[in-house]
C-alpha cells in the first residue's frame, strides 16, 4: 500500500512536470447566493475567451494550453469566498483569477488572499466605489465601472426624464450602500431631492415596515438598489401591493431575466440601467455567445469574457504567466495605442503581440481602463414597455 502511494505520488510529480505549460485560470464567482442566476453565463463568457485562446494555439510561443477552475463565493459570503480563493491558489495553482463577483466578497479576497499570494484578480462585476481606493499592489482590475459612475448615470437618466424627487432603498451591504451613497451625492449635486435613503435586509420575512417608511417619505420614483433574487423583489412586491409606488428605477443588481419575467408588466414605465454598450464588440460577442450556447446578453457575461481575455493577453505581452510579471501589462493591452481587438480576434491579438505590435483590447464591453484599473463605464438604459423589458439607449 505504501509503495503504491509512493508510486502514484511519483507519477503525479512527473505528470505535473510534463504539463508545466498548462496554465490554470480561476473563475471565482457566486455560483450560489443572491446573484446565482447571473453566474452560469458569466462563467460561460470567461470560458469562451479561454477556448478561443486554446484554439489559436499561440499563447506564450505555442504549445501552452489554458484550463479553468471554478470557485464559489456565495456572493455575500466573505468566508466562503476566501476559502475558495485559497483553494484555487494553493491547491489548484491558478495563475490569475477572474472574480470576485460581489463587492464585499471581492474586497475580502483581495486583501486576504490575492495580495499575500501575489495573484492578479480581474473582477467582471464588483462595482463598489470603495474598491477604487483599496490597496492592491497593482494586482486588482475590473472590467466593470465603479458605482460612483453608475450614480452619475442614474442622475442623468432621472434628470432627462424630468424626475427631481426620489426615495432610495438599498440592500444592506458594500454594494448597496456604496451605490446608494454615490447616487445620493450625485443626484443632490444636480439639484434633486432624495426623500429617504433607507436600507433593507435581504431574505427577510416581511417588508411592510420598509415600504411604510418609504411611502411616508414619498417621491416620484423608488430607486431599488438591491438584488432581484433577494430583498429587491420583496420590496417591489410590497410597494406594488400597497400602491405606495408604481414607478421604479432598477440599478444593475436588479436588471435580469427574472425582473423582466416577473415585473415587466406590473411596473410599466419603470426604467433602469446595467453595464453594457452598443459597440461593435458587443454585437460580435452576442453572436459568438449564442453559437456557444449561452445567453451573452445576461448582465456581466461580456465583462467576464473581457476579464479572462485581458489576463491572457497580458501574459502574452509579458511573455510569462507569472502574475508578478504580467500584472504590469494589463493596462497596456487594454488601452490605446495599438490595433483594436474585438471578441473572436484573440488569436490575431496573440499573433500581433508576439510580433511586437501594440494592441488596444476593446472586447465585448468596450474596455477602457482608467484610474486604478477600472472600466470607464458604459451603461445600457432599459425601460418597461408593453409588458416587456426593452433597451432604449446607451450612456
Amino acid at each position, binding site marked *: 500500500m505504501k509503495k503504491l502511494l509512493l508510486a502514484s505520488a511519483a507519477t503525479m510529480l512527473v505528470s505535473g512536470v510534463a504539463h508545466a505549460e498548462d496554465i490554470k485560470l480561476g473563475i471565482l464567482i457566486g455560483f450560489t447566493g443572491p446573484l446565482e442566476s447571473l453566474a452560469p453565463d458569466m462563467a460561460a463568457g470567461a470560458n469562451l475567451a479561454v477556448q478561443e485562446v486554446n484554439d489559436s494555439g499561440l499563447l506564450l510561443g505555442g504549445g501552452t494550453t489554458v484550463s479553468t477552475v471554478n470557485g464559489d463565493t456565495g456572493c455575500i459570503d466573505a468566508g466562503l469566498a476566501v476559502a475558495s480563493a485559497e483553494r484555487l491558489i494553493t491547491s489548484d495553482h491558478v495563475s490569475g483569477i477572474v472574480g470576485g463577483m460581489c463587492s464585499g466578497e471581492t474586497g475580502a479576497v483581495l486583501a486576504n488572499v490575492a495580495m499575500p499570494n501575489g495573484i492578479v484578480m480581474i473582477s467582471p462585476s464588483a462595482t463598489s466605489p470603495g474598491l477604487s481606493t483599496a490597496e492592491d499592489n497593482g494586482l486588482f482590475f475590473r472590467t466593470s465601472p465603479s458605482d460612483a459612475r453608475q450614480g452619475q448615470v442614474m442622475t442623468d437618466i432621472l434628470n432627462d426624464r424630468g424626475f427631481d424627487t426620489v426615495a432610495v432603498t438599498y440592500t444592506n451591504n458594500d454594494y448597496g450602500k456604496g451605490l446608494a451613497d454615490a447616487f445620493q451625492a450625485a443626484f443632490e449635486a444636480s439639484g434633486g431631492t432624495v426623500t*429617504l435613503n433607507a436600507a433593507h435586509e435581504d*431574505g427577510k420575512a416581511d417588508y*411592510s*415596515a420598509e415600504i411604510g*417608511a418609504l411611502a*411616508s417619505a*414619498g417621491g416620484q420614483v423608488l430607486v431599488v438598489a438591491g438584488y432581484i433574487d433577494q430583498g429587491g423583489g420583496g420590496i417591489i412586491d410590497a410597494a406594488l*401591493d*400597497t400602491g405606495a409606488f408604481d414607478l421604479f428605477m432598477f440599478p444593475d443588481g436588479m436588471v435580469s431575466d427574472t425582473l423582466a419575467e416577473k415585473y415587466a408588466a406590473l411596473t410599466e414605465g419603470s426604467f433602469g440601467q446595467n453595464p453594457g454598450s452598443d459597440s461593435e464588440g458587443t454585437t460580435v460577442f452576442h453572436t459568438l455567445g449564442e453559437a456557444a450556447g449561452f445567453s451573452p446578453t445576461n448582465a456581466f457575461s461580456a465583462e467576464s469574457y473581457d476579464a479572462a481575455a485581458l489576463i491572457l493577453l497580458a501574459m502574452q505581452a509579458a511573455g510569462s504567466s507569472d502574475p508578478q510579471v504580467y500584472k504590469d501589462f494589463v493596462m497596456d493591452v487594454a488601452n490605446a495605442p495599438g490595433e483594436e481587438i474585438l471578441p473572436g480576434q484573440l488569436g490575431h491579438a496573440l499573433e500581433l503581440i508576439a510580433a511586437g505590435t501594440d494592441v488596444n483590447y476593446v472586447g465585448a464591453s468596450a474596455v477602457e481602463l482608467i484610474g486604478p484599473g477600472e472600466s470607464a463605464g458604459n451603461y445600457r438604459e432599459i425601460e418597461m414597455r408593453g409588458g416587456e423589458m426593452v433597451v432604449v439607449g446607451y450612456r
Partner: protein
Amino acid sequence: MDLINALVALLNYVIIPGMSYGAQLAIGALGVTLVYGILRFSNFAHGDTMAFGTTFTILVTYWLQSMGVSLGPLPTALLALPVGILMTALLLLGTDRAVYRFYRRQKAAPVILVIVSMGVMFVMNGIVRFIIGVEDRDFADGARFVISARDFKQMTGLEEGLAIRTTQVVTVVTALVVMALLFWFLNRTRTGKSMRAFSDNEDLALLSGINPERVVTVTWLIVAALATVAGVLYGLDKSFKPFTYFQLLLPIFAAAIVGGLGNPLGAIAGGFVIAFSEVTVTYAWKKVLTYALPDSMAPDSLVQLLSTDYKFAVSFAILITVLLFKPTGLFKGQSV
C-alpha cells in the same frame, strides 16, 4: 376629509399588513407552543416543517393547475392544503417514531431534545431543498386584490389608496377558523382535555389512565396541520423560499415566548404583538400627521422613532423586557 385620508394611510401601511403578518406568526407560534406544552421541548425544526408542508401543497397546486382545476377568485392552494397536511403528518409521526420517541423513553432532558430537534431541522432543510429546490416560488393564483389601491382611489375620490389583497383576507379568515377549531378541540373534546391534563401534570395524567403515546400522536397531527397552514398562508401572501422559512423561526419563537410558552392564547397574542411592533415602531408618521394636523403644524421630518434597520431589535427588546419582568410571558405560560 383629511382625517379620513390619514386613517386610510394608516390602515394601508400599518394595520392591514400587520394583521396578516401577525396571523401568520400566530399560527406558527401555536405549533411551537403546543410542542413545548405537551412534549416539553422547543422545536427548532418548526420553520422547516412549515416549508415541508408548503412544498407538497405547492406540488399538488401545480398538478391541480395543470388539470385546469381552480377555485375562482380564491387560491387553488387551499384545495391542495389537505394533501400537504397529510404528508407533513406522516413526516412528523415518522420523525417521532425514529428520533424523538427514543429520547422520550430515555427521559432525556429538554435541552437534549432541543439539540435533537436542531438535527432534525437540518435534515428537513435538506429534504425540502432536494424536493423543490432553493428558488423563490410564487404559487398564488386567483384574484390578487379584493380592492386595489387604484380602484379605491377612484371609488372614494380620496388621495390615499387602500389595498386589500385576497391572500390577506384568506389569511385572516383561515387563521380565525383554525384558532376556533383548536380551542374547541382543546376545551370540549375528550382527547383535547386529556392533552391539557397531560400538559398540566404528566404524572397525574398518567395515573388517571391517559395513554401518553396517543396524546403525543394527536399533538403531532395538530402541529402538522398548524405548520402547513401557517406555511401555506405565508407563502401565498409573500412567496415560498426555503431559506426565508428557516429565518421565520426567529419571529415565531419570539411570538411564542412573549405570549407565554405552552399557552395557546399567548401564542396568538404574541404573534400580533411581534408583527405590530415590527411595523409600528419603525413607521414614519409624516404622511399620517400631515393629513391629520393643520397645515401650520405639519412635520418636515419623517417623524420616525427608529430606522427600519432596527425592526428586529424592536421585537427582541420586547422579548427581553417581557422575560425580565414576567418570565412566564404575557399570558401565564411555563417559564423557559
